[in-house]
């Protein structure tokens, strides 16, 4: 028992200790504001080991991002942002172009990490994220089901799994009302080749495609735990870990956790496959997460911040934490956990269409669709209401006249 104890503790410690290996030294006080998922914990831990650095990890970081960077001096030196959260920072020019700093300190970075706006590098991406199929290899093999590649095949498979009764629910889905539900719709709808807005930011949902997607969402939900409207990514991850579901189209960043023997009762049985195809392209979107440097700070502080960013993405750090994320930085070797993400990207999944107007549309979709899912509204009314809600909000924000 003692030995087991030690082994177990050792396994737990591993994730924490392997990060703080990078050699760096920071002399200028710096602060960061980022999201709070494991990849950021790893990177900020490295930065902390350089000294004079205070990270703030907050999943609600977007609440203060804009205000904190627009004040002078900026409250934070650097921030971790993603496709959508970077929009206000870029358009209000609250972050600085990094070309000079890259020339001076950024030799270790690769071209694929640079987010360019009009040719200038405004952010350094650290990791790549998308959504793809995770399935129980044993169940699919036992029932003789081929790995699904489209949603129709998923439904066929789900039907067979349901009939066999080997799990509680064949499918899992992060359909939590709000951002998640809106996001699921956006993915499916993009997979059908739909567009959301015209060039004047007026809503331009393709009704037929949207209705087809909504029907598909409803059909998918019939194979899920009936509490799907409160289930978020963590909940679906847990369902997979506890062997309650057989398939889920889930964020690539969760691929490591579902096969983690410390938490999963079905560790090793879950395999990754490409994101499911819509009729035109994969019904998944590509995301990046990365770093920006504030504009309203002295140049020397900016330089210190940039050096910290480079240190956090040192190849040694990345390879020591290889499976914690699909890294874009050098030192990453795609393992089995990243197979699904790679396949999805190769199949041509589009980038999430981040913009101010799209964010408003996303909110309108996320709030509006739950009434359809609960059966309170029919598809036509739901879509009309979503467009009306979008227009009201976009007018208030000044995005449409």
């Amino acid at each position: 028992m003692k030995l087991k104890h030690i082994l177990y503790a050792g396994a737990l410690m591993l994730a924490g200790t392997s990060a703080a290996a990078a050699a760096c030294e920071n002399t200028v006080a710096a602060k960061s504001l980022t999201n709070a998922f494991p990849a950021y914990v790893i990177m900020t831990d490295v930065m902390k080991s350089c000294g004079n650095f205070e990270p703030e990890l907050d999943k609600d970081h977007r609440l203060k991002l804009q205000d904190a960077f627009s004040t002078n001096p900026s409250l934070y030196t650097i921030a971790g942002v993603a496709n959508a959260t970077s929009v206000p920072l870029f358009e209000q020019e609250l972050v600085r172009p990094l070309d000079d700093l890259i020339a001076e300190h950024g030799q270790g970075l690769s071209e694929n990490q640079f987010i360019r706006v009009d040719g200038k590098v405004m952010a350094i991406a650290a990791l790549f994220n998308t959504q793809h199929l995770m399935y129980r290899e044993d169940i699919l093999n036992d029932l003789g089901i081929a790995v699904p590649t489209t949603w129709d095949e998923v439904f066929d498979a789900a039907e067979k799994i349901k009939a066999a009764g080997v799990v509680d629910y064949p499918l899992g889905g992060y359909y939590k009302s709000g951002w998640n539900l809106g996001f699921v719709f956006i993915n499916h709808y993009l997979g059908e080749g739909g567009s959301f807005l015209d060039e004047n930011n007026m809503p331009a949902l393709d009704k037929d495609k949207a209705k087809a997607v909504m029907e598909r969402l409803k059909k998918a939900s019939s194979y899920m735990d009936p509490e799907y409207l409160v289930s978020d990514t963590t909940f679906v991850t847990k369902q997979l870990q506890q062997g309650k579901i057989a398939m889920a189209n889930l964020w690539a960043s969760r691929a490591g956790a579902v096969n983690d023997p410390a938490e999963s009762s079905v560790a090793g049985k879950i395999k990754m496959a490409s994101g499911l195809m819509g009729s035109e392209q994969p019904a998944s979107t590509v995301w990046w997460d990365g770093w920006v440097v504030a504009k309203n700070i002295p140049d020397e502080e900016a330089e210190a911040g940039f050096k910290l960013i480079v240190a956090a993405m040192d190849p040694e750090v990345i390879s020591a934490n290889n499976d914690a994320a699909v890294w874009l930085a050098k030192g990453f070797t795609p393992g089995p956990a990243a197979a699904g993400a790679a396949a999805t990207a190769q199949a041509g999944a589009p980038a999430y269409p981040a913009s101010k107007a799209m964010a408003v549309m996303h909110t309108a979709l996320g709030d509006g669709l739950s009434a359809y899912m609960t059966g309170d509204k029919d598809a036509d009314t739901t879509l009309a209401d979503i467009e009306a809600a979008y227009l009201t909000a976009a007018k208030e924000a000044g995005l449409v006249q």
Partner: protein
Amino acid sequence: MRFKTFLAFVGPSLFLMLIFIAAPLVTVFWNSFHITQPVYERVEVETCTPGFLAPTCTTSVVQQPQLDDEGKVITETTFVGLESYRNVLEPDRFFRAVENWDWNTVNNIRFWKALRFTLVFTLLTMPMVVGVGLLIAIVVNGTVQSIKGPVIFISLLPFIITPVIGALAIRWLFIGDGILTQAMEGWLQRDIALFAQGWTIEILMYVYRVWHVAPFAFVVFYAGLQTVNQDTLESAIIDGASRFQRLRYVIIPHLMPLIVFVMLIHLMDAYRVFEEVIGFSSQAHVISLQWLTYDFLMPDEAGTRAISRASASAMLTMVGIIVLLVIPLRRAWRDQRGTAK
């Protein structure tokens, strides 16, 4: 007491309330009649984002806020009258639905949905809290001295526990195949999903609130029971009053001011119901007025907030609570007149 002395006593408290409650309230009021938006221009931008192996670049025309010389966003503020209120209340749709007796449509307009729930929540939990609190107080008061202490201690737990934590604890017990859901499934021999439909979530919210607040009502009533006049009680017994009659004619009237007090506090707290919506993530089915305001205020991913609609919804919420408070306030006013004379 002279005015100056009075001011010296009340001053610090008043000052804080003015700065941190009254002043924000004034800005909320002002915002509800105005809209502030950035001035946008259309620009063509080329953006390159990382792919799995190589970056992809796209060129598109986007709307961007104009910046002034100092790099601040240029904004325009316009007076819009009642438009934000209209956007929140959606009166056209509401009245059309009411004319057609179309309850479903009314319940699909967010504000009215929130109002419906908030009022039902407030008015339904109030008698439950008072009733359960009173029952526990009377039973505890009548029990053996030696177990009073532990019982009071256990009874107070739901009240002192951090609300966010309490709501989460309840959620763990019920969500998915939570332990209590399973117990119910075993008992009723059927599959139960409490978070799958509105009415079960709503019942869970009522139960949680009563569980959380009844202990407060209980201590207040229990404290009140300690001061019941024993002589009155004894003479009631001599007069042959039954147990129920003693409760009805001696104890309840004695506790009446406390019952009013608990009801008033509960009215105000229940009307602000918010933690339950967050804790049970019930927004697909059930939303409350405070949650609606909160939802308007939260920026979306690109940092846009619906400040004006949030302000309008906040003002409407406040009007609502003033309406609800009118009856108790009139009573207070009469009392005040009474004592002043």
